[in-house]
């Protein structure tokens, strides 16, 4: 009788245990130390027939930040760290002035890539569906201010983040696709140097 009771209890709990929740997603995304990959960014502007497409490479390092290396149609390297955002100017990194709203947006960007759901929950209503290998996270802005900028942000992924879509209130949207992302490689010496500088 007692055994049956425990069995029933376990049965009733198991659906909860199996559902893929935000905490699990966070843990999953926070696991890799370093992620290398390619990206394609498409900016869909309402007034343009075709999107503004740019391509490049990215390096996301858990304890350092993000290197965003734009390769076409123009070459430009960016670095986002806790200190702020920097742009490579010749051989040196140049910190960009800490524009309050811009800095906030970049904090969001980093939070999205690193799956820091607690950072996102502050500003957005989060809804997660799917399973660890194929999930979809929808962010709806909470504050009046964010609502004036974004309608919604959609993030799709499996082991890692695969696609980010930002829908702006003005009708423009940006799609970021991460390709060939891998957590296998450690930071190269040059990359370490870029983060250290």
């Amino acid at each position, binding site marked *: 009788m007692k055994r049956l009771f425990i069995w029933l209890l376990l049965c009733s709990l198991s659906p909860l245990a199996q559902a893929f929740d935000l905490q699990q997603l966070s843990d999953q995304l926070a696991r890799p130390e370093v992620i290398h990959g390619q990206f394609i960014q498409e900016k869909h502007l309402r*007034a343009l027939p075709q999107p503004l497409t740019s391509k490049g490479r990215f390096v996301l390092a858990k304890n350092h930040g993000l290197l965003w290396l734009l390769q076409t149609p123009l070459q*430009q390297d960016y670095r986002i760290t806790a200190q702020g955002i920097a742009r490579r100017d010749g051989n040196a990194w140049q910190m960009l002035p800490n*524009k309050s709203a811009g800095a906030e*947006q970049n904090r969001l960007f980093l939070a999205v890539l690193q799956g820091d759901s607690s950072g996102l929950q502050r500003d957005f209503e989060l809804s997660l569906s799917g399973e660890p290998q194929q999930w979809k996270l929808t962010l709806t802005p909470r504050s009046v201010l964010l609502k004036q900028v974004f309608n919604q942000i959609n993030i799709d992924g499996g082991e890692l983040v695969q696609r980010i879509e930002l829908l702006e209130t003005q009708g423009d949207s940006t799609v970021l696709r991460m390709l060939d992302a891998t957590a296998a490689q450690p930071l190269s010496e040059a990359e370490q140097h870029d983060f250290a500088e």
Partner: protein
Amino acid sequence: MILPSERMLPRLFLILLLAVLALAGWQWRNGAPLSANLMELVPGTSPDALELIAEQRMQEPLNREVLVLVGHTDRQQAIALAQTLGEQWQASGLFDKVQWTLQADVPALRTQLLNGRLAMLSAADREQLIEQPQAFIQQRVQALFDPFSGFSLVPNQDDWLGLTGRIQNSQPQRGAIQFDIGSGALVADADGKSWVMLRARAQGNAFDMNLPLQVAELLQRSRDQASQAQGQLLAASGLLYAASGQQQASREITWVGGGATIGILMLLLLAFRRLRVWLAFVPVLVGMLFGAVACVALFGRMHVMTLVLGSSLIGVAVDYPLHYLSKSWSLKPWRSWPALRLTLPGLSLSLATTCIGYLALAWTPFPALTQIAIFSAAGLVGAYLTAVCLLPALLKGADLRPAQWPLRLCECLLQIRQALLARVPTPVLLVLLLSFCAGGLWHLTTKNDIRQWIGTPQHLTDEARDIARITGFQPTSQFFLIRADDQPQLLERQTALNERLDQLIALEKLQGYLSLNQLVSPPADQQKVRQALARLPDFWQPLLDLGVPVAALQGELAQLQALPVTDIDAALAGPLAEPYRTLWLGPTTQGVAAMISLQGLNDAALLRVQAVDLPGVQLVDRLGDLNRVFAATQVSAAELKLASCVLIVLLLIWPFGVSAALRIVALPLLAALCSLASLGWLGQPLTLFSLFGLLLVTAIGVDYAILMREQIGGAAVSLLGTLLAAVTTWLSFGLLALSSTPAVSNFGLAVSLGLAFSFMLAPWVGRQEHPIPAQEDQR
């Protein structure tokens, strides 16, 4: 034996007293006519009306706004705490406006940016557009791909050229404050905490009597509440300084007034051994009443600092009854009216000389001292009238049997003096004294600073410094005032000044400035932008390559060409203009005027140089001006002092003759010199206030000299009278020296030192066989 006139006097006086009381009641009908505004006390240095308006405009937020940083290690908790406190403050009813979020009106911002595309472009962006249109387009292309450029308020298709984004990015930084986009709060990170900015605008200003205390109380409650939530509050406001100043003033009035009162009452009881002699305190009370009524009648309000300094009058006012009460040692039996008759000439002379001394203060350009002079002179007249008209009637039939020990003490003192003079003759003593003075004067330093007027608690200045460090806001009290015939000229003149200020910033002598031409450029520059834009189609191929339709670019260009010239008034209407609005003074009788406010100044002297050769540009540096006025006034104070001495000599020639009159005045002057030297030996600086204190010493010291000179009842009795008068006066001025306001304490110290020397030197006045040589040299 009482004269008929002496029967009438008390009644007449009582009628006068009732009238004054009625006047006082009428003056206080709407509450206490008190003021705590420090600026009412300092001289008006600028006769210029526009400058005054500008100054008030710049000071207004300091005196009305409270800036609070709500700190917590957790950003969310800090924001939540700021919200809770903000709501409580709003509900308190003390504030017009409590703000902890920035509620941006995005549509209005967009409109302003779009309409200001020609006028609001920064100088650097304008230059690039005009001189390097190729680079301008290149940067725009880059920005379109840049995922991190931050969101632009205006969508790309409304601004293909990206002018609004450039305007947005060139707006002056709000210090280290960041905008929390989720909550709308303004947050700065420092010391491991997030600090949320909360701003409240009080309903009244710092010069209300009650409001500052209420605000300080509310802040204290909020501090307690924050610390319960592991948070911390930092606050800065003129209101808090005012509250602390008021608390300090009332504490000091209690200390000085209460201490002097108790001391004097004890002294009276010890010396005269009759409780009835406490009636001698009635002139003091009446004196205070007269002083307050005269002050309010003349100035409309009375400053709390007048009250603090005025409470020292207690010790001077009680001297009048002491004059004739002390005759009870020689007059046996002592009867009030005859004793008064005997001392009346000396009493009247003493009133006249002391009043001259106080009223000399009234001629200085300092409203503070004028008030104190009027308060004191009126108070002394009141005390004198009471002592002469009313007190003898109250003391009628009093049988005074004073204690003998004070008399023996004075006899003893005189014997010591005789013994001393027998060994060391007066000229030698004088030489010794003068060398003491010379040495002290050698060490004397002067110091004049408005900050001496404020006894600011350390924790308030510390918090203000922390806030400046955390937020990066370091407002300075100096600012530039720019005048011009019209708006275009005004903006041109600002541009000329800003070029110089930019150099100071590059040299790190200045952190920043806010100027109207950062918001709107002169019409000529707007025209140049329009012309440069017309040439842009030659360079915009890269944009077309991206797929931007040529029709869209041409449409935008046509729209830009059609934008009207923006003037200052139009520019100030939009939400981005909020910080600039106070800077615009608008049309004046001679044209238009505006201000440029400054941040983080290191070297004030450098600023003055910046305005040189720039027409219509003027640096307004109230503190610097005041400090200069202070220094200049020292000279005129010394002149006043000499003038008051001449007046007193003239007054004294009539009863005493020329040589005695000179001697009576020379002694207090020597005492003042000794007091000055003592300040030097003590390492205390000579301030304007100590100098004014010494002015007073001359007046009161003359009083002692007269008492000694008259010798009614013998040398010992006269010395005793002087001693009693001096001790009571010391009590009140000595207590002032303990004040935490440097100016007040300096004043008290100088006066008490001077009085001590006056007392010690007083016996020399009456000893005809020991003439004091070379009186002229002692000045």
